[in-house]
């Protein structure tokens, strides 16, 4: 028995040790498909439609990267990952990038050897309670039972929040969003806490969304973004600038409707450089000249993606808020394309 257990550990070490090679870009091109890690299912961010196709705000990032590198937004193999295994799956090389409501933190960036390619949603942690509880503020939650997803920044913020406010609570650790939803609806916990966007998405999937309220307190900063392994800068650049291209496209007024027309050439040199009719940005990045055009054409620019999957006209109904362009009072600010 001793032996088998030991072998098991080393097998794990072996898996964890598959090298973070410095040629992910070449690998993806050779494979002809992008391996993208997403969440196990969160309406609006990553969920399967009636045809079994993955759709959503995070999924769109994967598709844009696939379009930029391979010219084909459908050349993506999706790997649903739980909060607990996501970084291990990425570091093991099983996926090329991760796009699943993941908060950019110091220790993840530095200690866990991950590389965040930017932020696609500026979020913060909130609380949801059944309206019938009559609770109006998170400060009234003393003694409550709280559902949280294990392996997240959420559980750490939660511990701090209750400790600082001198309140007690009982955590119920849960591994996926759908499980959390079940337990919350069954009344096994009084409160469900996660990123506010996740709360809105979860609530949108309820039979009676109006029976649940999201409390006004936002207790943390949760910049969510796509990430890659540490140590492969070329690949990190591809993901980073694909995201920037989507954001810049909105700022520059490039949409999926007018992109063909604009790609032929305009009198705005930045649009020309972005879409490849001028300069050689694609070549520098190691991809084709029309990389950004393909990425934007896949699902539209950042604003289009936002409105389609999680915006005001969807059941999730999120306002742009912090996620508006810097020109509109938000935080989105893509560096210049030159």
């Amino acid at each position, binding site marked *: 028995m001793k032996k088998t257990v030991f072998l098991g*550990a080393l097998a794990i070490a072996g898996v964890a*040790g598959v090298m973070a090679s410095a040629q992910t870009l070449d690998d993806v091109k050779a494979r002809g498909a992008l391996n993208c890690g997403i969440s196990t299912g969160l309406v609006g961010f990553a969920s399967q439609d009636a045809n079994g196709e993955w759709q959503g705000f995070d999924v769109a990032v994967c598709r844009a990267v696939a379009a930029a590198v391979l010219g084909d937004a459908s050349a993506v193999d999706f790997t649903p990952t739980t909060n607990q295994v996501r970084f291990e799956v990425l570091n093991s090389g099983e996926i090329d990038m991760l796009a699943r409501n993941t908060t950019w933190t110091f220790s993840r960036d530095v200690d866990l050897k991950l590389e965040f390619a930017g932020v696609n949603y500026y979020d913060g942690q909130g609380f949801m309670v059944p309206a019938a509880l009559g609770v109006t503020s998170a400060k009234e939650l003393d003694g*409550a039972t709280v559902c949280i997803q294990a392996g997240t920044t959420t559980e750490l913020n939660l511990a701090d929040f209750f400790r600082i406010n001198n309140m007690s609570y*009982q955590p119920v650790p849960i591994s996926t969003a759908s499980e959390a939803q079940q337990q919350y609806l069954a009344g096994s916990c009084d409160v469900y806490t996660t990123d506010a966007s996740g709360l809105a998405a979860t609530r949108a999937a309820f039979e009676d969304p109006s029976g649940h309220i999201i409390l006004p307190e936002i207790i943390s900063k949760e910049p969510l973004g796509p990430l890659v392994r540490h140590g492969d800068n070329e690949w990190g650049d591809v993901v980073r600038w694909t995201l920037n291209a989507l954001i810049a496209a909105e700022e520059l007024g490039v949409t999926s409707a007018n992109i063909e027309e604009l790609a032929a050439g305009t009198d705005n040199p930045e649009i020309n450089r972005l879409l490849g009719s001028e300069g050689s940005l694609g070549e520098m990045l190691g991809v084709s000249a029309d990389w950004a055009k393909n990425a934007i054409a896949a699902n539209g620019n950042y604003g289009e993606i936002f409105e389609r999957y999680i915006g005001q006209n969807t059941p999730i109904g999120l306002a742009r808020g912090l996620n508006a362009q810097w020109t509109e009072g938000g935080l989105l600010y893509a560096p210049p394309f030159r």
Partner: protein
Amino acid sequence: MSTMSDPTQPVFRLSMLVNDTRYRGITFQIIAFFAIVFLFGWMAWNATQNLAALGQNISYGFLGEGAGYDINQKLIPYASTDTHLRAAFVGILNTLLVAFLGCITATIIGVTVGVLRLSNNWLVAKLMSGYVEIFRNVPVLIWILIIFSVMSNALPAPSAFRGENATASMVMDAFAFTNRGVYIPRPVWEPGSWMVVTVFFLSIVGIFALRRYAVKLLFDTGREIPVLKLSLAIFFVPTLLVYFLTGMPISLAYPSLQGFNFQGGIQIFGSLIGLWFALALYTGAFIAENVRGGIMSVSKGQTEAAAALGMRPGRIMRLVILPQALRVIIPPLISQYLNLTKNSSLAAAVGYMDITGTLGGITLNQTGRSFEAILLLMLFYLIISLSIAGVMNIYNNAIKLKER
């Protein structure tokens, strides 16, 4: 052994290492030994190389850092500001708790069912074999999930106990069965309670002494004394007497609904109950089979002989069959206990914070120290398994057939 050397012994040739049966065994053992050492060495080297390539070194420093997360069920004081090491201890105690409760319950279920399965009552025998088949043939993880989800969906939430027209109420005003667990009264120890406890334990010792004495009396003089009545008297009278004399120092705090949850009593978490019962029922089915096999291994002549001496069936089972059957039952029972303990690591499925949930779950996750955490986990389960096996082996040696 002869000390004389054979004068015609042939000179040693290298080929004899393989061809000569005297050396062959040793040769292959040595080869196997080096092969294994090489294999493990290579894997260890590979692991460190790969970790180094990922920019990680093996370090246990994280155990001393603040854990930052909270745990619901803790048998020792713990707060989120404590270290990962302490969180791991909380997890270890939770593992031991569910393993202990599970093993005891599984044994009780197993012995009862195993005996009843051999009952002459057709219905009872069939019911018991139905239980065994159902539990043995469905994976334990499924049972854990079933029992847990039945609990969390069938039982009312604490809020159902609230208000004028509450839809749920407490049992005897002392127990509350909710989907978050079962709340029971908590004993409150006031000064002087230690006397009551001491007297209680002394009475238990007294009962054992009495039984010994009764047997001796029976063998020496043939006189019988009413052991049961005397035992009951010793059990209750002195303890109650001291309890009232010291002014009733032990009282009960009843759980009551305060805010979101019941407070004041002891909460037995739903996750613990789900895990405990699933493990006990599942393992109990296997133990039942061991018990049945053990009983059937005792020859029928023993039963008949005991019956011919005029013993009643219950006594035959207790005094003649089971003691002999135990010798057959104990060895597989050890492995059932080990199974149960290891299966308790499925706790994560219901959010029970055992060692796999703390050290192997949240700590592993938040620190990214998977290799270190998994090694520690393995070490823990190894130590626990070896200890259980060790203790049970001592017991097995004590009851096994004494060959004289």
